[in-house]
């Protein structure tokens, strides 16, 4: 049809500037605290990685289009108009060195939501054709094949057949009227099928009815990542249609933090109406069942281990206590990193950064932050609850030659489920209070 142009991008910037953006830019006091909160700055010391500076193109448009002084300055030639070259230069800053982890937002003294701003700036960048090639390809695949990584239904079906063969469990597909519909991240399908196996095991254990949908199983949303709301909406609609067709009560977001934010927080806004079903993160579901006594475990992980908080489900999603409650059920030597929970440090691969080839070197450098955190704890094992974090963590650990297994929390819980026969005779013992 057409091609991306600078003009389209500029128009998109103008369209994206709303009251919060105007308020954020006018409240910024240039204190620079966001820099100290960003691992791309702390690990490189390069001031261009100061989060608010990454938003310079958007700020320019806001100032020159929507403020009196900015218009005067532009009129008198005191400030220069935004150029295409500038946008090309900022690609690295808006995509390659921002994982949208939101740590900067936490420290901003005037409460600017920098993730919201980056998300908006990406809309302009994508329309101008300045999204990184890897992200563009991923987005095209998501629409045409079904996921950014190129994993489609046939791959999923193959994995299901393998799990069913190996475990004897049945993985339900397209079953109508069940309680839960589970979503997956394509990374789980491809790299960590253990998750699907663990999910099936836990569902069976808890006695819950559930299903996958062949029409909406992919939870990650490339449209949110690249910053094109129409594409994001189309991807969300696939899930919404599937869930409504199967008439499920709850849709379970996989561990993947980005997927959780996309479906739970952006989802209803993208489609412009509330969902007819509930969305829960898998750890929210598991913790709910733990509280209800539907999840009983036995045995403890002996290794000294820590938990890496995925930014999108923990800091941006509010699923903070649940993973800790669950970990305490199965780990006897669980220790926290110095900055954990809502102030955790990102794995360096969120917000699409993990998929950008050109960002690999910088990302590896920034991983030093996680390495420092882990070195301080001297742990033997790392647990997390996000397939993307897990891939990036494994990659980083390898780059720094650190021997450390990384494991998903859902799988760990599934491994420790108490055999049903034993449940009866153990009644009355309060093992959950043990640590």
């Amino acid at each position: 049809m057409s091609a991306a142009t600078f003009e389209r991008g500029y128009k998109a910037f103008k369209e994206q500037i709303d009251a919060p953006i105007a308020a954020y830019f006018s409240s910024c006091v240039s204190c620079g605290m966001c820099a100290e909160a960003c691992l791309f700055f702390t690990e490189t010391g390069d001031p261009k990685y100061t989060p608010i500076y990454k938003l310079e193109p958007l700020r320019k448009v806001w100032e020159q289009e929507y403020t009196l002084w900015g218009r005067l300055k532009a009129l008198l030639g005191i400030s220069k108009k935004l150029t295409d070259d500038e946008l090309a230069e900022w690609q690295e800053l808006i995509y390659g060195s921002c994982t949208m982890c939101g740590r900067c937002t936490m420290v901003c003294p005037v409460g600017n939501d920098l993730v919201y701003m980056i998300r908006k700036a990406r809309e302009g960048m994508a329309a101008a054709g300045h999204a990184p090639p890897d992200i563009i390809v991923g987005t095209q695949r998501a629409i045409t094949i079904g996921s950014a990584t190129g994993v489609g239904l046939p791959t999923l079906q193959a994995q299901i057949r393998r799990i069913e063969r190996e475990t004897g469990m049945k993985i339900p597909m397209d079953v109508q009227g069940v309680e839960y519909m589970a979503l997956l991240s394509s990374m789980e399908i491809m790299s960590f099928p253990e998750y699907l196996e663990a999910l099936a095991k836990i569902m069976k254990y808890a006695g819950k009815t559930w299903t996958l949908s062949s029409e909406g199983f992919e939870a990650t949303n490339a449209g949110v990542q690249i910053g094109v709301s129409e594409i994001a909406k189309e991807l969300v609609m696939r899930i919404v249609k599937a869930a409504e067709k199967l008439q499920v009560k709850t849709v379970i977001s996989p561990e993947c933090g980005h997927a959780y934010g996309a479906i739970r927080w952006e989802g209803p806004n993208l489609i412009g109406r509330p969902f007819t079903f509930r969305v829960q993160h898998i750890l929210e579901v598991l913790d709910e069942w733990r509280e209800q006594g539907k999840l009983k475990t036995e045995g403890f992980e002996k290794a000294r281990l820590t938990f890496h908080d995925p930014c999108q489900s923990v800091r941006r999603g509010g699923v903070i206590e649940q993973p800790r409650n669950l970990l305490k059920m199965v780990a006897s030597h669980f220790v926290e990193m110095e900055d954990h929970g809502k102030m955790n440090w990102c794995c360096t691969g969120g917000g699409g950064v993990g998929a950008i080839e050109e960002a690999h070197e910088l990302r590896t450098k920034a991983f030093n932050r996680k390495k420092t955190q882990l070195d301080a704890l001297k742990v033997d094992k790392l647990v997390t609850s996000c397939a993307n974090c897990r891939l990036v963590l494994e990659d980083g650990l390898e780059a720094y030659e650190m021997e450390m297994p990384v494991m998903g929390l859902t799988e760990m819980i599934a491994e420790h489920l108490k055999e049903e026969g034993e449940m009866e005779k153990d009644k009355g013992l309060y093992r959950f209070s043990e640590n």
Partner: protein
Amino acid sequence: MSKPQSIAERLSNQGFNRRDFLKFCGITATVMGLPPAVIPQIANALEKTPRQSVIWLSFQECTGCTASLTRAHAPTLERLIFDHISLDIHHTLQAASGEAAEQIRKQAMKDNQGNYLLIVEGSIPIGNPGYSTIAGMSNKDMLMEVAKDAKAIIAVGTCAAYGGIPHAYPNPTGAVSVEELITNKPIVNIPGCPPIPVAIAGVIAHTVTFGTLPELDSLKRPVTFFGQNIHDRCYRRPFYDKGLFAESFDDEGAKKGWCLYKLGCKGPVTSNTCATEKWNAGVSFPIESGHGCLGCSEPNFWDAGSFYKALSVPTGDFAQTAGYALAAGAAVGVATGLLNKKKKGDAAKNHETVTINDLDRKQQ
């Protein structure tokens, strides 16, 4: 000469018991803004210290400062202090005169060499020394002679501190302040025309207790008493904040006790403690009596223009001007807002859907 008595001994001779004494120490600490923990320290110091020798010299002055300090309302802190320091010489108050008076001054200087406090009241004429002499000696010569062996100097009143009224234009006597002549001694200024008595008593109590001078500001005034301006502590301040002003001394506003700013009150630029300590045993202070502050404790207060000219008043009808400005501002704001809204609206209306074929620069 009998052995010098300590303040505590003197008090007990006069029928004050220890409880009265400790109460006095407590009041001293409170007035000086010191924590309760130092009360025993004050008591201890006052109990042991022999009465501080004080020499009081009066130069070009009206005796208002002395009158302010000696006016009768008892018992007060300053009364206690002045009863119990050794005021060895005070030109106005002493009974002796002529040669005898000068002899007392010389004796006191000799007995307490390097240890007496010198209090100066009034400015010193250096243009023509003949304007003020004592026993044939110019004020300047006497000041220099007595200051030489003093522990510290307290310049009491605006004249001694800044030159005061004698110093005002055209200053026929060539009047100067103490600190303009003496640079090698610690000096405390307690300005005011007259100054608040408790400030003098407080500085003396502090000096006796701690052996040092209290904390001073850039004009050498004790911060405890001169740290805040009258305006900030004025009971009429709420009217100022609401914009309620008396326009003349007999209008409704004046009767209702509104702010006297427009009638020339200098409270906003005057650092003193009148609004809190008040005068005449706490009866009132000028503003409470319906007259603006003259700023008498500030340098050059007499030459700072009319007492009845407001510090600064907006020209024209302030409310009307402000109203127009507000309306104009609001109009610009609304117009800008509408323009911005239209701009964003147009951008949204002309929104071009971005599909996966539009992500590249290449023509698909």
